[in-house]
């Protein structure tokens, strides 16, 4: 009898580190640090994204530091380059993040090209990715849903490729499932859908397409009950992964009776 694989037997490996959770969670837009911590707990996430920003001078000296709530000893902290519109500021952000996190190498590279859509600037992303890989960073790269570009980033040495499902914070879901599937089929590094998920079914669809994980923030933080949504996302990602591994039935244009036709007495 075939055994059912559970998620513990089906880890994802990113930059040689093994993770049992395939949900990567952002820490922006929550009401407060307590809600952030509770959402992370409910999500089961092991990789948590943070942004690098100027410290507030002379304001709220007693405010807890985010890294006191999300301990780098317990979680893999994934600093992002959000808000960077050129390669140089993205590289500078990563260098500061590495210092901040005592030599930490794993980063999420995003170089944005347009304020309205937050779509990536691919030429600038390539320049930054090459420089960061040369600087010995492990680069998880935010890109569009272009299979050719995804392959280029993999060949360049990015440790994970993270195509958007829809614009950042839009909650529109997987707008181009065929491209996402093509990216997954061609890949030999983890493919993580980053951005665009709106609710649990979107995350499940990403996983059913064969993605290795989903990175999200707004879908959880902007839910009416973020902690409950974090729990829903955890289950959706596990369910979607199991459905992908199980292999779905073929689609048919017409019905196929589930009960036998033989043996009817009427």
């Amino acid at each position, binding site marked *: 009898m075939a055994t059912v694989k559970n998620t513990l037997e089906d880890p994802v490996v990113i930059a040689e580190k093994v993770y049992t959770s395939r949900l990567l969670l952002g*820490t*922006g837009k929550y009401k407060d640090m307590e809600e952030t911590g509770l959402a992370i707990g409910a999500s089961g996430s092991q990789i948590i994204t943070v942004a690098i920003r*100027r*410290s507030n001078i002379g304001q709220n000296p007693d405010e807890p530091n985010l*890294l006191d709530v999300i301990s780098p000893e317990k979680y893999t902290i994934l600093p992002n380059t959000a808000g960077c519109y050129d390669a140089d500021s993205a590289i500078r952000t990563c260098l*500061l993040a590495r210092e*901040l*996190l005592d030599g930490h190498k794993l980063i999420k590279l995003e170089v944005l090209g347009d304020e309205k859509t937050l779509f990536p600037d691919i030429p600038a992303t390539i320049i930054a990715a090459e420089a960061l890989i040369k600087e010995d960073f492990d680069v998880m790269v935010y890109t569009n849903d272009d299979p050719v570009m995804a392959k280029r980033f993999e060949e360049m040495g990015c440790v994970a490729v993270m195509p958007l499902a829809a614009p950042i914070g839009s909650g529109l879901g997987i707008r181009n499932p065929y491209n996402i599937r093509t990216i997954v089929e061609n890949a030999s590094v983890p493919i993580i859908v980053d951005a665009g998920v709106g609710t649990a079914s979107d995350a499940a669809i990403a996983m059913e397409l064969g993605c290795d994980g989903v990175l999200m923030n707004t879908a959880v933080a902007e839910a009416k009950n973020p902690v409950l949504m974090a729990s829903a996302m955890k289950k959706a990602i596990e369910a979607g992964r199991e459905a992908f591994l199980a292999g779905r039935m073929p689609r048919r244009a017409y019905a196929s009776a589930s009960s036998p036709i033989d043996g009817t007495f009427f």
Partner: protein
Amino acid sequence: MQITLNGESLVLENSVNIVQLLSKLELSGRLAVEVNQHIIPRSLFSTYEIESGDNVEIVEAIGGG
């Protein structure tokens, strides 16, 4: 002397090293410091003297996706 700190001008009475600057600003916890776009390793905080005209950036991790 005058420096630029996180984009704003700041007047300091005496010259300070980075440990003294952070303490003056009541900043603690995990921080990274850049002076004139060069990262100053934490191990040098107590010996690195801020000079007049320096552009200092102090950053930390905050919520982001």
